């Protein structure tokens, strides 16, 4: 059967032509294409890896950032709290100091007032004593203008004095 017997002429030409085309393409055709595409694939793979790395780094940055933000917030609230405390303390201190000062002033004032009062009283007493002496003088001068009354008065004074002596 002629279908399954290979024809020599065709065998010959096939070897020659296929071999020639294969030689040309293996030299100038396929390696150019495959090398280039392989290089490109390698580059793509590298780029993907790089992108992954960058993404990972970004993620870690993000975490860091969040941590920093958290820390800052904590610090802020801490400072705020401290400030409030300081304020309260200062106010309380000031109040206490003011109170003390006021008390002191008050006490001093009271003391002064007391002293003033004392001296005033003393003055008044002195004045009154003086006045009463003068009044007594005048009264005495007037009453003792006669002898009789002078005597009576001296007696009375002696009595009184003696009574006072006895009592003491």
């Amino acid at each position, binding site marked *: 059967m002629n279908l399954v017997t290979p024809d020599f002429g065709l065998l010959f030409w096939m070897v020659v032509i296929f071999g020639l085309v294969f030689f040309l393409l293996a030299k100038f055709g396929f390696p150019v*294409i495959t090398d280039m595409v392989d*290089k490109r694939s390698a580059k793509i793979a590298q780029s993907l890896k790089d992108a992954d790395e960058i993404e990972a780094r970004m993620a870690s940055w993000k975490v860091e950032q969040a941590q920093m933000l958290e820390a800052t917030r904590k610090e802020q609230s801490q400072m705020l709290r401290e400030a409030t405390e300081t304020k309260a303390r200062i106010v309380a201190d000031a109040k206490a100091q003011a109170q003390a000062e006021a008390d002191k002033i008050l006490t001093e004032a009271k003391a002064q007032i007391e002293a003033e009062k004392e001296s005033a009283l003393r003055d008044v007493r002195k004045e009154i004593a003086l006045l009463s002496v003068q009044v007594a003088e005048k009264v005495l001068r007037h009453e003792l203008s006669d002898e009789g009354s002078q005597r009576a008065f001296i007696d009375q004074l002696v009595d009184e004095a003696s009574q006072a002596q006895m009592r003491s």
Partner: protein
Amino acid sequence: MILTFLISLLLQVSGGDTLSSASLRDPVRANAPERVSPPENEESSDIDVGEIIFEHIGDEYEWHITEWKGKPVAIPLPCIVIDNGVHVFTLHHAAENGYTLNENGKLVNAATGKRPVDLSITKNVLALIMSSLLLLVIVLLTARWYRKHDAMKEAPTGLAAAMEPLVMMVHEMARENIGEDYRKFSPYLCMVFLWILLNNFLGIMPFFPGGANLTGNIAITLVLALFTFFIVNLSGTKHYYKEIFNPDVPVFLKPVMPVIEVFSAFMKPVSLTIRLFANMLAGHIMILSMVCIIFIMAKYGPLLSGSMTLVSVLFGVFLDALECLVSFIQAYVFTTLSCIYIGLARAKEE
């Protein structure tokens, strides 16, 4: 046009031809053969389907394209024979040079009846030259794109974009199956794959420059398989040959295994040859048979021939689609198997 064609065809069938008898050309892929001519001369419209089919899938010394007004339109091709010197002539002048065709349609020496060394540029050789040139141009143009452009920065366009997936598919296949020195073998595998694919598709094409049944020709597939065979066995590692001649098997198997292994090494190219050849040939025969049904049924009246024409056109379309699939699958299978065989031959000791 188709009508003229069909009429001329019927005339041709009834008239008979001296050189290439029964030259029914493939009209199915013209895809409108519903209008079948009425049987003009019933007594002589018996069509020899076998002859038509064999003439299609076989080889010939001129490229018969069609019939025009009862005369064959063919590209004359040079017959080259070596038989006491080189003789070059066209088929029409075969007799003058002392050659004639034998019953298989091959040139023989008219005097002795023996086959000379026949290096004629036949239809298949011309198809081979054209398709190989086409492949050469396609791949070199693709390679040119990669030379002229920076593939790192631009995506391939046009031809390069179309060819890249095919080439890279085979390249990846080589990488997966062969191992670290796959780059040495990848061009061969790419070449085989693209060559078979291109010729399978050209084979389905019903008109010039396609239509030659190259990949369904056993000489062609044999050469392809032998290329694989030599590449496999010339690049075989020590380990590969040890596995063939001195495998690690129980002692009583030692004498048997080399025989089996050597036989299997030689059967690999045979199976490659037959697989591709038979698949493509069968596809061609099926499609041609579908087409022939139209012409066989022509004499059975309009109803029967009309309905059968519809059926065979539908089947023809289906078979053509199937052939497109088979074209790819067979190219892929041949390449994959070649790749696996090379991979086995490059095996290293574990």
